[in-house]
């Protein structure tokens, strides 16, 4: 008996001791990597940067209207935006860190471009934002100081130029590149084309000697060997969608897009007046004209962006408004999302000629832009359109005409860019005369800073607001860029 007892106890003691596993042996996470190669980060950064289809932007830019309630983008009473792009800047900084570790300089060069892209996206929204001091939490800097918008633009202009020059001499391979599949010439074209966009963003600051916009613009435009720029839609900075989970067109299956979004009336009328065949690629016939042929311009209609919601919903219910073309909500691949397109570049060049920044044939650049846009929508027969007297440039109205075409070319692509272009130039006019308009019929110039920032970086935020906006952080205040 005793023996059995003893051996039983021994067994239990053994069981207890044997189930040990040392704590120090479990200090590695088997599910995640602590180091990765930079191309894995590049792929994610590209998805974040290029994937920019936005219905909110389409409402604010008078392409679309919304009928399920009063929408703050459409009626211009929006308030705040977020700082999500700082997470993207962090991903870029991690990519550059991993590139340093693996001694692959090419990702550090691309990092300069993406840093520039994300910080411009941020400053366009708010005004002054942290940049030189940002993304330094790992160095215990948790409350970055706000940089002036001007200093951000200066840094970006220099970085983009460096990026082009460094890329020209770099001989490493770019992996993980879902945009250009490692084609460095195309990357340089993107960087330089984007550089020209940034300069055009600053058009109001034309006379600023420190920025020296005109000279910078000329330097690139006149030196295509050193500064190659886009030459066709082949060069577009485009993200293609695939019929694979998480890779599908973001509006596919969007119910609201099928039932509550309608084309905007002033936009539809413009396309009708110009007899613009892109209308057939953008929109569906209105229900009460369903029997007309697709190519009948009168079969399309829209709702007035600033119009009274009751009027708009009644019209929609009565079948007088067109939805977007069904491909937007049915086709998983549909069309690419654009960071910047060849068409946009040509319009930038045309505007630069109109502003006397460069000397070139304005009509060629302007028509190249239109043609590129037509081709993007696979429209081949547009010669009549190019010759349509209503769209021709005429002295004194070049910028308005160019911006009107730029607006048409950016329907549901290129993120919020067209809203910023309109903010900069006033063209095309976005209607605010309807009865539904809010914000005292003003188009907001910016967004308020995120609410959390007041808690987490309050002093620096207060400084930035006080030096920029005497009436406080509100959406109608004008940032440096627009003054």
């Amino acid at each position, binding site marked *: 008996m005793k023996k059995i*007892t003893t051996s039983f*106890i021994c067994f239990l003691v053994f069981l207890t001791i044997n189930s040990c596993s040392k704590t120090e042996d479990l200090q590695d996470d088997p599910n995640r990597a602590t180091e990765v190669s930079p191309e894995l980060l590049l792929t*994610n950064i590209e998805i974040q940067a290029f994937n920019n289809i936005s219905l909110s932007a389409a409402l604010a830019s008078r392409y679309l209207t919304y009928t399920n309630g009063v929408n703050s983008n459409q009626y211009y009473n929006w308030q705040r935006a977020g700082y999500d792009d700082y997470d993207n800047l962090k991903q870029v900084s991690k990519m550059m860190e991993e590139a340093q570790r693996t001694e692959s300089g090419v990702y550090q060069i691309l990092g300069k471009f993406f840093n520039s892209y994300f910080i411009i996206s941020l400053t366009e929204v708010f005004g002054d934002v942290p940049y030189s001091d940002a993304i330094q939490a790992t160095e215990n800097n948790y409350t970055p100081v706000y940089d002036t918008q001007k200093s951000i633009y200066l840094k970006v202009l220099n970085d983009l130029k460096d990026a082009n020059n460094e890329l020209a001499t770099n001989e490493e391979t770019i992996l993980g590149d879902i945009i250009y599949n490692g084609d460095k010439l195309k990357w340089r074209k993107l960087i330089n084309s984007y550089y020209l966009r940034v300069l055009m963003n600053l058009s109001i600051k034309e006379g600023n000697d420190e920025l020296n916009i005109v000279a910078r613009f000329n330097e690139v435009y006149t030196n295509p060997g050193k500064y190659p720029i886009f030459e066709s839609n082949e060069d577009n900075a485009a993200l293609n969608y695939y019929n694979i989970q998480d890779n599908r067109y973001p509006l596919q299956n969007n119910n609201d897009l099928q039932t509550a979004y309608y084309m905007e009336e002033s936009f539809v009328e413009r396309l009708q007046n110009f007899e613009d065949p892109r209308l057939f690629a953008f929109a569906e016939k209105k229900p009460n004209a369903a029997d007309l042929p697709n190519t009948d311009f009168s079969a399309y209609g829209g709702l007035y962006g600033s119009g009274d919601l009751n009027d708009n919903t009644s019209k929609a219910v009565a079948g007088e408004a067109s939805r977007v073309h069904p491909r937007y909500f049915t086709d998983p691949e549909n069309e690419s999302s654009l960071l910047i397109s060849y068409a946009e570049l040509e319009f930038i060049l045309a505007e630069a000629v109109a502003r006397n920044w460069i000397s070139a044939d304005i009509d060629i650049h302007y028509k190249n832009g239109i043609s590129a846009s037509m081709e993007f929508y696979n429209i081949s027969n547009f010669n009549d359109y190019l010759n349509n007297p209503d769209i021709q440039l005429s002295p004194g109205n070049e910028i308005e005409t160019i911006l009107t075409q730029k607006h048409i070319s950016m329907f549901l692509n290129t993120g919020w860019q067209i809203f910023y272009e309109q903010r900069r130039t006033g063209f095309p006019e976005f209607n605010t005369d309807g009865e*539904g308009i809010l914000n005292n019929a003003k188009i907001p110039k910016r967004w308020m800073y995120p609410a959390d920032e007041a808690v987490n970086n309050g002093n620096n935020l207060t400084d930035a*607001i006080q030096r920029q906006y005497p009436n406080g952080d509100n959406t109608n205040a004008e940032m440096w860029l627009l003054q």
Partner: protein
Amino acid sequence: MKKRIILSILLLITAIGFSQNTISGTITDQNNIPLGGVNISIQNSVGGTVSDFDGNYSIQAKDDDSIIFSYIGFKTQTIALNGENTINIVMQEDSEQLNEVVVTALGIKKEKKALGYAVQEVDGESLEKAKEANFVNSLSGRVAGLTVKNSTDLFQNPEINLRGASPLLVIDGIPDRTTDIWKVNTDDIENVSVLKGATASALYGSAGRNGAIMITTKKGKKGKMSVSFNNSTMFQPSFIKVPDVQTTYGNGNQGVYAYVDGSGSGTEGGGWIWGPKLDQLDPSTPSGYVETTQYNSPIDPQTGELIPIPYISRGKNNIDDFFRTGLIQSNNISVDWGSEKASYRMSLSNVYQKGIVPNTDLKNTSFSVGGSINPSDNFKVNSTLTYNKQYTNNFPEVGYGPTNYLYNLILWTGVDVDVNDLKNYWREGQEGYQQRHFNVSYYNNPYFQAFEYLRGYNKDNVFGNINFEYNITPEFSLKGRSGANIYSLYRTYKEPKSYIGYGDKSRGNFTVEDSNYFDITSELGIKYENDLTEDISINGEFAYANYYRNSTYHSTATDGLNIPGFYNLDNNSGATLFGENDITKETIHSFYGFVDLEFYNAFYLTFTGRNDKVSSLPEGNNSFFYPSISGSVVLSSIFDLPSWASFAKLRGSWSRVSEGKIDKQSNNPYSHIQAYEKGTSWDGTPSAYFGSALLSPNLKPETSDTWEIGSYIRFFQNRLGLDVAYYQARDYNNLIYSPLSETSGYTSLLLNGDVFKRKGIEFTLDASPIKNENFQWNTQINLSQYRRYQEEIYGNKEQTEGFIRVGDRTDKIYANVYQTNENGELILENGFPVSDPYQRYIGYDEPDWTYGISNNISYKNFNLSFLFDGRINGLMYSTTNQKMWWGGTAPGTVNQFRDDANNGESTFIAPGVKVIGGSVEYDVNGNIVNDTREYAPNDVAVNYINYMQTTSNNQNKNYHYYKETFIKLREVTLTYTFGKAIIDKMPLSNLSLSFVGRNLWLSSDIPNVDPDSGKDNLQAPSTRSIGFNINAKF
């Protein structure tokens, strides 16, 4: 039939071998009231009996035997028979003993008077009659400080809060860190002991920091073999709360509806229920009613077009027509036997729950064995082992969205649709590809959902433990315990083609998930016990404990299906399958010990200490020690109290408990490691990203210091008892994700910071207002309050991101609201409210009081028990109510303005003001620094439908935060125990029959939903349960 034969055989066996004299008599208390339930056993022998309701007993004994009478709360008496055949006994109350032995941490039984902390017990018997799907639901209202927020959905865990935090679940001394409350069968529960404070459970270490719910399962008892059978059948025939929707208007928008193709667009009204008035007469149509095309319109064979049919309220009974009577049926049979040397129990249980949604159910089967052997006087071993299987082919998905039944049934379906017509759920000619419904872009046909979208769940649990104690000397013994929790879980998700998710029309999908889990807790220690003198005794333990966990998870999903309805990964139509897996290992090594001191049966003192070394913190900071001290003084043993006070005790304790787990929710032991996450693959190119939280390098364990005082007093010969506990805890070094400015690159920094104070008070009142021969009434009232305050904010910030300042309660709710002027009037622009750019305070989340009132009334053979419980104040957000106002189903939307809007007229002028001049400026925290606004009454009429679609009537409904206050008749049980006269004629030792109701009646402030669950993300209707229970012992 088979069952009956087995029972008869078992009975036969038990009858053999006992043929002696029959001793009988009656047992009463000092007041001459018969005492039922007194244990009667024979000294030095196996077996025994209990007295019946009338205090009568009979037992077989030999002439020279001695009989032992024992009953909790009374002094045990041993009577030598000396040939007598009739022994009548008057039991003497023992005010010191009372019924006060409770199970404490590590399964150690202690006298309640010795405890320096709060423990409350619930007897297994009170749970076995009125069955719930799991035992935790049955604990609602029974324990002060324990809040159980019951879900109305099938197979959903209730939220369990003990003093505001999630307690540890312990089964027979072995913690179950997976907290699977479904694996413990209610019939196997001997007793549930709730250890409320950190002191009570400090010996469990970090995991026990928030108290513990300890389950002791039934073991074999000494005595003759007995067989118990328990059947409980509960029906859910009706609802106590279901959304009340308007039946005046149907599907559509702006008063227009005509079905085209189910896409939801155009005249289909975008999925809104803001359609035309139903049941309107129109003499020009064949039916005499207004007609329009509908999804079930016949098609004109000539034109191929839909033929309009009457637009009438045919779906008024959709709720009753779709949901069926639910059922919870549980059966248990157990066999029990024991002698001085060994005891044994085996139990087989099955719980079948039929959901109110067609084609949903849950089966839960357990087989458990447990027993003990004492091979010699100084060696004892006991163990239990349970196999449990939880199994269903389909249970409902919960949460707001097209995957929710109520969403598809009434919230977003006008009563022009009759659910009976939806039983045929495939569109003709598109079987397998396209469901048939009035709107196939936004919603799912509920029958399609019930019969085609299937969520399978199959979990096999094995858990058990083995304990031994070996007395080396009379003072020293060696103790050991080892217990494991093991499960494998297989889940499947079958998603048919055309199934609607948010913004997603399924191409058909199949997902398989596999989890395997193993944990083992082993302990080995020395126990010391010594009565130093008659008045001083000491005992203590010192032990080493080890916890190890190893779990794996794996899931694989298709990206579309080729063949509809064929659910196999090989049927993937996408380029690749999508999968993920993880492996988790964790260990904790601990030493712990305690010392109990007892002086003069009046002073008690306990010290505990524990050191944990965890793998879930970086090496160097992962080993930590924490102590506790608790004591109690029995005043009634020291002083002569007035005669009305029978017992009085004061207790107090202080404890420190540290915890080294960062991510308690996900139970991830690797959260202290900074690493990359897997990103989206783009056309086959993989990606990675870095998370948004930065970790500070020197993470330490977080710590709670808790003190507690309490008293327990009994009055009037123990007829009235009051237990009061007050506690305060200080949580510091908390492992928090302290928010950072996003501009720093990270949204948060994981660090040790912030200090919180928790405090609360609990009252438990026991009373026996009436106690006489035939009639007894016992009542217990539980009442508790809990609060948590922000004491420090890391980095000395002015406020948290949730706007909580130092000194504030942490459950303050800030919400997005509309602007109001200084008189509280709503500010409107163009007739619509203007949003406030800053969130504003609107109330507190936590209730002020949580209470439960249970009553037990016995009259002769009848026993009636009923339980009320509820909560007072606190706010909860209601998705259901918000969506009803937004979508057009709230009865309040039936008004003239709506009719006007249907006619295209804007007539609704919201009460409030408009700004006619001036402006307002805010500082960064949203305080107004300059306000020159001038106002005039709002006079802009808007379309009522547009207004509701924009505002959801937020400003009149407190932004849909509603008071949580409610009282519920939780349970009523009426039991008839058959008397001896009837029992004797049957081969039974006990038979009782109960009629049972649960969740019978509710009164609450919040409309349309049951506030019991404490949250509403479109919950299932709350059902009433009614049934019966049969309990037989052989």
